[in-house]
């Protein structure tokens, strides 16, 4: 009997408690910086595409929502000919971000992906590509990789020694 009255009273006290609800469209939830939302393709600090079309993201994707086609420009730089993410399938697991060797593909704290037409959720490369470097400001894959590409020969990358002439090493 007493416990019944007590629980009535305790429930009544909730009249004066703060409400937890966030009034969404007017009031937005505070998202953590590592929130896994809409996927973007970033550029390196020089403004070129980071993606080297290695297909690792597409292979890692558990729902197969990423598709792309590799191509190579005249300087030997690989890039995706098209890059397509179907956000109606994406489960925002972030595996693609983990798999990416060049920090090209990144997840952003934006979850407001709503469309009246389902087809509009298929994002093409021009929708995915952003103009900045995303979370990693200074990283430039081609400037640290020991891979000869147009404008940069062997041994010209950062923290890389020039190649050794192996014929010099003869005893």
């Amino acid at each position, binding site marked *: 009997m007493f416990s*019944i009255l007590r*629980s*009535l009273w*305790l*429930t*009544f006290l*909730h*009249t004066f*408690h*703060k*409400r*937890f*609800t966030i*009034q969404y469209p007017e009031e937005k939830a505070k998202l953590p910086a590592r929130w896994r939302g809409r996927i973007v393709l970033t550029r390196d600090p020089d403004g070129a595409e980071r993606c080297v079309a290695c297909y690792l993201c597409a292979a890692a994707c558990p729902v197969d929502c990423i598709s792309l086609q590799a191509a190579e420009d005249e300087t030997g730089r690989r890039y995706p000919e098209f890059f397509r993410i179907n956000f109606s399938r994406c489960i925002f697991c972030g595996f693609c971000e983990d798999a990416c060797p060049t920090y090209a593909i990144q997840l952003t704290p934006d979850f407001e992906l709503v469309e009246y037409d389902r087809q509009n959720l298929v994002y093409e490369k021009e929708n995915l590509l952003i103009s900045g470097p995303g979370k990693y400001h200074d990283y430039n894959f081609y400037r640290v990789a020991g891979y000869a590409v147009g404008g940069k020969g062997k041994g010209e990358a950062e923290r890389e020694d020039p190649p050794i002439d192996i014929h010099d090493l003869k005893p």
Partner: protein
Amino acid sequence: MSDTLYYLLIIVGVLVVMLTIAALLIWYERRMLALWQDRYGPNRVGPFGLMQVMADMVKIFFKEDWIAPFADKWVFIFAPTIIVVAVLLGFAVVPFAPGIVVADMNIGLLYFLAMSSLGAYSILLGGISSNNKYSLLGSLRGAAQVISYEVFMGISLMGVVILSDSFSLVKIVEAQKNMWFVIPQFIGFVIFFIAGVAETHRAPFDLPEAESELVAGFHSEYSGMKFGMFFVGEYLGITLISAMIATFFFGGWLGPSFLPPVVWFFIKTFAFITLFILLRASLPRPRYDQLMSLGWKILLPLSLVNLLVTAAIKLAIGG
């Protein structure tokens, strides 16, 4: 002639007001439950979400009015109307204010008890005609619950009758001029309140419905407006019981004269409606045997003792 017109006006007025209150109670209950659960509840449609009721009405009217092919068709259709009609008839004797009462019968209290027990047929027939095991269980529970709580619901009111020397609700209210009956009849009030909650089968005594075990119990098979009738009937029932508590124990329309009597009546009624909702917000549902033993072993003897003591005191003092 003008007398007839006056009564017609009151009848239509009571009907419209009660149905409006019942509809708004859906909104009110959702908002209050939300408040006590630290949420907002419906607050988008119209001012404070008041138009939510309209939206729900439109939805429920346009829903498919499905009749289960295995059901007893005519009883199935007929059952939901009983509760609404019975409860609305019960409002006929509610004295809202001096002069504003549809029928001031000299057996108003008995009439109210009769009408509130008629609602049990709705549960019983609805559950049986659904031809579904859960519904049958729900209606069995509902019938047993209403019958056993009906007994001391009546007995608990006899103390009020003894004190006021009348079965007429207007006389009962007038007898409370000096002191509300809640003070001499506090036990009667508590018993009547518990029985009222059971009578309207509201949480925590919502065993006929028992969403978590019987999947909505007696109205499992109902959809569309037929379900809506059960719903409206339930809210009308809450209003009726709250109005009756206010009338029997809290002096009905009586109150300080800075507000008109009818306002006092509605303030009291709404206080009890809110208490009903608070009860739902905080208490778990008892087991069925607990419900029965509470009724027969505690509340029935208690109400009888209350009746005896009240009668004895009345005899000793009044002679």
